[in-house]
């Protein structure tokens, strides 16, 4: 009786195995050959900040939505990839399946003539943290959930952040330095040119200058004052720059040079194709405000009335655009509306010379042509409960796209992405072998 039942069951089992093998092979063929489905792709960011997919593959993904599960802080390359995907229309959502470190830190070298480090700190709770490196204590800062971005000089080894029970060590991300970093300042000899050159030199920038004093008298510093990519990384244009020098700027920028257009010089017609926006009517600064907590309110402003396509706003004052930037060819252009920043340095508060120097340095740094950053970000910290706010702050501080619906996964699943080719092949092969064994057992050839 049992033998008869087995004889009846074996063909059925064999058929099932055949069917399983065929389905597995079909799925393998479908995964390999069928066009990608537009659904949701789930990514898991490992504690060391990496994912198991190369960013180049991720960039080719056709998924409409990317759910990114954070077990650590994504590294710089992944952040840039996610930002690019979001910019191209993908919905990128972040969530933390497990508590993230209570203290997130990142450090990257900032291009300054004397070197420097931009540090980014986010904590789940407000905390007093001390920053240090191998050479000793650097500073102590209050970290809030909204994050903090202090700056320091060059680090000796890794950055150590000590926030009581939480400690983190960060190896600084190394920015690729430009091949040449001389700055050329062109324009009339004014207090603005004099104090701008002084600030840049104090910050360590090597400066060439061509400052017009009379129709046939130009004070030069360095080589003859014409922009050259072989010598200059940046050109700062002030009102009164010579037409010959200005005529060379389009080529200079398209070849990868940086250009900073200051104040009234944005009205120079030859700079129209390069500027970040057309200048509006000048606005006088608020008398005495240069010594206030918002010192640039005291400066005269040539506002950017209408933005050029592709430009980004770097600073607004009272709702009008004060500083904007754009890419032109391989170069970058920063348009600064403030016309008399020297007044801030001379008549500002106690830290005005330093603040003025840092402000100009950061503007110039954003226009310096750099190679891509290299190295990585590491985080190491004790775990703690992390609410959605620090995730958002972390994302904001570290340059990730804004978190939307954190913790919510998509209802649409990308079936293709969830299928594993290795398991499908294994299942298909096992089914075929089992089917062959059954046939031999039944005495069939």
């Amino acid at each position, binding site marked *: 009786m049992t033998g008869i039942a087995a004889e009846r069951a074996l063909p059925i089992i064999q058929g099932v195995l055949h069917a399983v093998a065929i389905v597995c092979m079909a799925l393998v063929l479908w995964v390999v050959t069928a066009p990608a489905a537009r659904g949701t792709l789930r990514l898991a960011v490992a504690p060391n900040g990496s994912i198991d997919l190369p960013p180049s593959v991720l960039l080719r993904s056709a998924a409409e939505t990317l759910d990114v599960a954070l077990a650590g802080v994504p590294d710089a390359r992944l952040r840039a990839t996610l930002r690019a995907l979001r910019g191209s229309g993908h919905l990128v959502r972040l969530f933390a399946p497990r508590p993230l470190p209570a203290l997130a830190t990142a450090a990257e070298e900032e291009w300054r003539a004397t070197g420097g480090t931009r540090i980014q700190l986010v904590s789940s709770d407000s905390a007093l943290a001390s920053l240090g490196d191998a050479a000793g204590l650097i500073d102590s800062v209050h970290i809030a959930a909204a994050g903090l971005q202090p700056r320091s000089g060059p680090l000796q080894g890794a950055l150590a952040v000590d926030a009581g029970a939480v400690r983190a060590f960060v190896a600084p991300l190394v920015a690729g330095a430009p091949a040449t970093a001389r700055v050329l300042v062109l324009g009339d000899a004014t*207090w603005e040119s004099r104090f701008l050159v002084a600030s840049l030199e104090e910050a360590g920038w090597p400066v060439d200058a061509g400052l017009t004093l009379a129709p046939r008298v130009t004070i030069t510093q360095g080589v003859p004052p014409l922009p050259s990519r072989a010598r200059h990384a940046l050109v700062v244009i002030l009102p009164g720059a010579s037409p010959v020098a200005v005529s060379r700027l389009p080529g200079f920028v398209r070849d990868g040079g940086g250009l900073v257009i200051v104040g009234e010089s944005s009205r120079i017609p030859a700079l129209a194709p390069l500027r970040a926006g057309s200048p509006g009517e000048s606005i006088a600064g608020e008398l005495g405000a240069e010594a206030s907590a918002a010192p640039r309110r005291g400066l*005269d402003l040539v506002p950017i009335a209408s933005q050029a396509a592709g430009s980004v706003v770097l600073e607004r004052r009272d709702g009008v655009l004060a500083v904007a930037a754009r890419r032109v060819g391989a170069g970058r252009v920063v348009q600064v509306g403030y*016309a008399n920043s020297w007044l801030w340095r001379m008549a500002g508060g106690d830290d005005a010379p330093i603040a003025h120097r840092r402000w100009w340095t950061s503007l110039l740094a954003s226009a310096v042509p750099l190679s891509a950053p290299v190295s990585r970000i590491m985080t190491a910290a004790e775990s703690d409960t992390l609410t959605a706010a620090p995730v958002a702050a972390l994302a904001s501080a570290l340059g990730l796209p804004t978190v939307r619906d954190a913790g919510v996964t998509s209802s649409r699943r990308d079936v293709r992405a969830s299928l594993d080719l290795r398991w499908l092949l294994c299942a298909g092969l096992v089914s075929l072998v089992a089917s062959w064994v059954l046939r031999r057992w039944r005495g069939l050839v």
Partner: protein
Amino acid sequence: MRRAAYDSAPMRRENPEVAALTAHTQRAPLPASAAVVIDALARYTSVDVAPSGAIVPLSSEALLRYPFAFLTGHLPVRFTAAERAMLRKYCDRGGLLFVDDHNHDIDGVFHKTCTEELARTLEPLKPIPNTHPLYRAFFTFADGPPTTSHELNGWGDNLVHDHLQGIERNGRLVVIYSSKDYSSEWSFHPENKRFLSVDNTRFGVNLVVYALTR
């Protein structure tokens, strides 16, 4: 005429302006000195100058709005604590103070007290070599600072001073001290320059251009 051009130019705060100072022990300085220097700047350069200078107290925060300042006098100088603090701040931030002894007398009270005060506030004055870039900043003065009629006439200390003196910060002059009495030499109406064979205010252009470009 450049004169017409600068008279009609709107006053803008980024323009070079000349401030004449009053320390609390001095009377208001000669306003004509600032006027002829401004006139010389407008005659010889395309620098967009404001049409008039300003007279500000040494202790005032307003001093910081004038990166080039001119202090002269003939009475004993005693700075207050506020004046000392402001002068230090002014020099630290990049201002240039030109001090001129209106007595043109190194044995006079202004010279003795002012040099003491500058030494107490900043540091002792040192002679400026006659090869200094100051003397080539715009016009070339191969022999150093130009002489004044008061020196040549034997007034004051009866000396022709070979050098100016100064105080440097980071390789840049922040104080220039003169015993030559340029304030008397330049104390005339700019229109009267037409009676001069050589404009004696040209050195004033060098002073301002040095402040503008160094």
